[in-house]
């Protein structure tokens, strides 16, 4: 009985993403019809350019990577109770550093050149991310504003560099020269666009998971995120954690910039990122700050982006804006679906408790709360998704921002 219910909940949880994409497509179909396009054909093209062939799948992966890396970083910052809104800027600065090393750095041979450029990208991203961290830790200044303001500064800086000092000779648009092969991330799967950036991203997923859950630094980060004041009382140097978490967060975003320059684009140019760093905020939270969840969420965004090219070209007569509309509606419906799911689950658990009269455990033995007595589904201790926990933690941390 319980199993059947649990199965049903699992079924619902799997159906939600599918259903929400479907609903978004249904709404967009009306817009496509209204402007004279054939929705079925448009969607066929959309799906085939996202997942229809090995090449398409590769494109989805390539588009997931620059979202995945900053999202991992944002998740780390959030684990420490910090909002890194500035991943977009850190990404650009990372790209700038990678291009700088590749174009003007030492003449290294293949793996070393690319590796050095990636390290430079991470270092530069870390530096850009650490600025709001330092101001937060030592001056108590809200990291949200600083990291956001630094996005605009970073973009203008990159514009300056590619429009002026590093502009490629005879270029008709603001971009540097193509970097030498020793610095490129090579294509992994011939016949697709999948480059070694994917490996970098996968390594980053594992490393992030490892850092957070397997190192003493990760434990300090989670501790500060969950309770800043308490962590301080327990002897954690909070300022160290704040600065390092923001730096690591920036490093991951910077790495994304490096991967874009050395892998996908081959050079630094204006408009390198189309809001990857901002979308990554949604991805990190949608993935509930959990590396695997973030991988899934960035694949969703990557697929929607890759599908966008198919949809855009098929839907002649319909404004290209149909693509972001589908993308956003899919996520809005997903959010609503998850909300409905959480409600169903809570109602189910309360009903279980009533039906079985699962009595709270003896006093001072709240095993019932920690989910050990009684045949109850797992994970009941976590009524709120991690993301909400992080928000709560963040706000608790704010409270402790004493003089």
């Amino acid at each position: 009985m319980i199993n059947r219910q649990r199965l049903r909940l699992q079924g619902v949880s799997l159906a939600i993403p599918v259903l929400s994409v479907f609903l978004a497509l249904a709404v967009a179909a009306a817009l496509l019809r209204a402007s004279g396009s054939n929705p079925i054909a448009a969607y066929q093209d959309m799906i085939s350019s996202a997942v229809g062939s090995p090449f398409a799948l590769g494109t989805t992966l390539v588009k997931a990577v620059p979202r995945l890396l900053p999202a991992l970083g944002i998740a780390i910052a959030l684990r420490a109770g910090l909002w890194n809104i500035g991943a977009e800027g850190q990404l650009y600065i990372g790209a700038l550093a990678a291009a700088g090393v590749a174009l003007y750095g030492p003449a290294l041979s293949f793996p070393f050149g690319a590796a050095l450029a990636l390290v430079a990208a991470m270092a530069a991203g870390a530096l850009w991310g650490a600025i709001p961290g330092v101001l937060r830790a030592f001056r108590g200044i809200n990291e949200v504003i600083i990291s956001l303001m630094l996005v605009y500064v970073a973009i203008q800086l990159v514009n300056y560099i590619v429009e002026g000092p590093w502009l490629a000779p005879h270029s008709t648009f603001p971009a540097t020269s193509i970097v030498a092969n020793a610095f490129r991330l090579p294509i992994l799967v011939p016949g697709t666009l999948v480059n070694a950036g994917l490996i970098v991203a996968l390594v980053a997923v594992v490393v992030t998971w490892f850092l957070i859950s397997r190192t003493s630094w990760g434990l300090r980060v989670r501790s500060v995120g969950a309770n800043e004041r308490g962590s301080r009382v327990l002897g954690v140097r909070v300022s160290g954690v704040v600065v390092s978490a923001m730096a690591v967060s920036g490093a991951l975003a910077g790495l994304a910039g490096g991967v874009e320059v050395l892998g996908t684009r081959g050079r630094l140019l204006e408009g390198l990122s189309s809001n990857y760093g901002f979308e990554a905020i949604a991805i990190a939270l949608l993935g509930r700050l959990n590396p695997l969840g973030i991988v899934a969420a960035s694949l969703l965004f990557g697929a929607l982006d890759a599908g966008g090219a198919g949809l855009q070209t098929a839907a002649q007569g319909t404004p290209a804006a149909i693509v972001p509309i589908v993308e956003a509606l899919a996520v809005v419906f997903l959010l609503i679906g998850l909300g409905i799911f959480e409600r169903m689950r809570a109602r189910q658990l309360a009903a279980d408790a009533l039906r079985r009269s699962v009595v709270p455990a003896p006093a001072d033995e709240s095993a019932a709360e920690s989910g050990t007595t009684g045949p109850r589904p797992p994970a009941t201790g976590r009524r709120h998704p991690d993301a909400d926990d992080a928000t709560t933690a963040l706000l608790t941390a704010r409270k402790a921002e004493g003089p």
Partner: protein
Amino acid sequence: MSRVGSGRPHGPALIALEGVTKAYPGVLACDSVDLDLRAGEVHALLGENGAGKSTLVGLLFGLQQPDSGRIRVEGAEVRVRGPRDAAALGIGFVQQHFSSIPTLTVGENLALALQGAGRPIPRRTVPARIQELSARYGLGVEPHRPVGQLSVSGQQRVELLKALAVEPRVLILDEPSSLLGPQEAEELLEILGRMAGDGLAILLISHKLEEVLRVSDRVTVLRRGRKVATVETASTSEHELGRLMVGDLATVQEAGRPAAAASPSDAPPRLSIEDLTVAGDRKADVLRGVSLSVSAGEIVGLAGLEGSGQVELIEVVAGVRTATSGRVLSGGVPMAGRSIRERQQAGIAHIPADRRNDGLVGGLSVSENLSLTELGGGKCTHFGLLRKREMTRRAQELIARYDIRVGGPAALVSTLSGGNQQKVVLARELSRDPEVILCAYPTWGLDFAATSAVHAELRRRRAEGAAVLVASVDLDELLAICDRILVMQGGRIVGEVSSSNATAEGIGRLMGGVEAA
């Protein structure tokens, strides 16, 4: 101590709960509970942590809706959908967790409460209303101070004021005295007695059996969401109530008085504090020239009203707060300039007053909480990597040793009951075998069984030669475990008594008497 109960003959039920049941996801918090409350009585509600007391009274106030069962007011079935309904029915409520908005002033909070109860009054008249209520019940508060800046007892008074402002017929109080000093608690009990005398029905939740015996007319005991019994106070005893609550008293360690101060040796004190001063956030200094010393094998108590500086003193020694002047020496070594971590390594343990916010990290697991102070040094980590297996093993050992009732090391600390949370703090701090133990309010909000466990552990540590400094507002607690008690008032030490010849009344006068000046 004299009884302050109304002693009036009991009338018919003013308000009654019939078979109410309330389930939370995974927990049946109230299971067919019956309870009736009569005009003019003080009715106490007892039960261990998590027994369902707060949930039950929350139903009366409309904070939650029962899954089944009825609420009757003067015989008629009613639905209480929220505080506005409750106010209309004449129910006032002082919640266990303060329900004031800390950033708003006392006056604004009162205005908000009245507005929420459906009885808004013009903003101009609020101070006058506060004045009037304060005068009637002897509750001094300043209308223009933000509530967050008041001492805990001040906040408690604001809660009372808000409940009384709606002129209730029924007043529910959920652990109102847990943070009050003896004098204030005494005053509160008197007020309650007076109000019952005026015909109010009062429902009082408390963990202090002695208080319950003194003030109530009847007692209802809950255990694991079920009602165990309702008894006439006159015909019961502390022992019987304890048995009703816990079920089996044999598991509870008996709290005996300490043997008179073991051997006040001539050895230099383990912990000494010299002329410590801490400037306050506001005008008055928090600590003013405090000096004291604690020897190895001694428990020293710090008595005082909430806000008289005991907690701050402990925080300075622990390194959480910095002193403006003065010295702290541990084992003769000055602690100035040492970080919290370094003090921990120097053998100082700290059990903070606010365990949820200061002592634990709720979002982490039990084993992670137990390891947080052990990062580095190889016990739980190896070159910066967590030794998960070792952490789990150690956590299991501590869970067993300190009898922490929890599913396992991986359970989130926030899911533990208050008593078990406190045991996690104790286990973590004491597992380092500290030579100096600082505790503030070590049993705040804990039930009977948990309290005795904490006391027993502190006594055991003393026997092993630790120097223990305990701050508490609960004089009975200090009398039960301390060798010496220092009384603090307004940031100074105003007296010292040896626990063998002290009485609660005597210390209480010392604590409060000077303050009145």
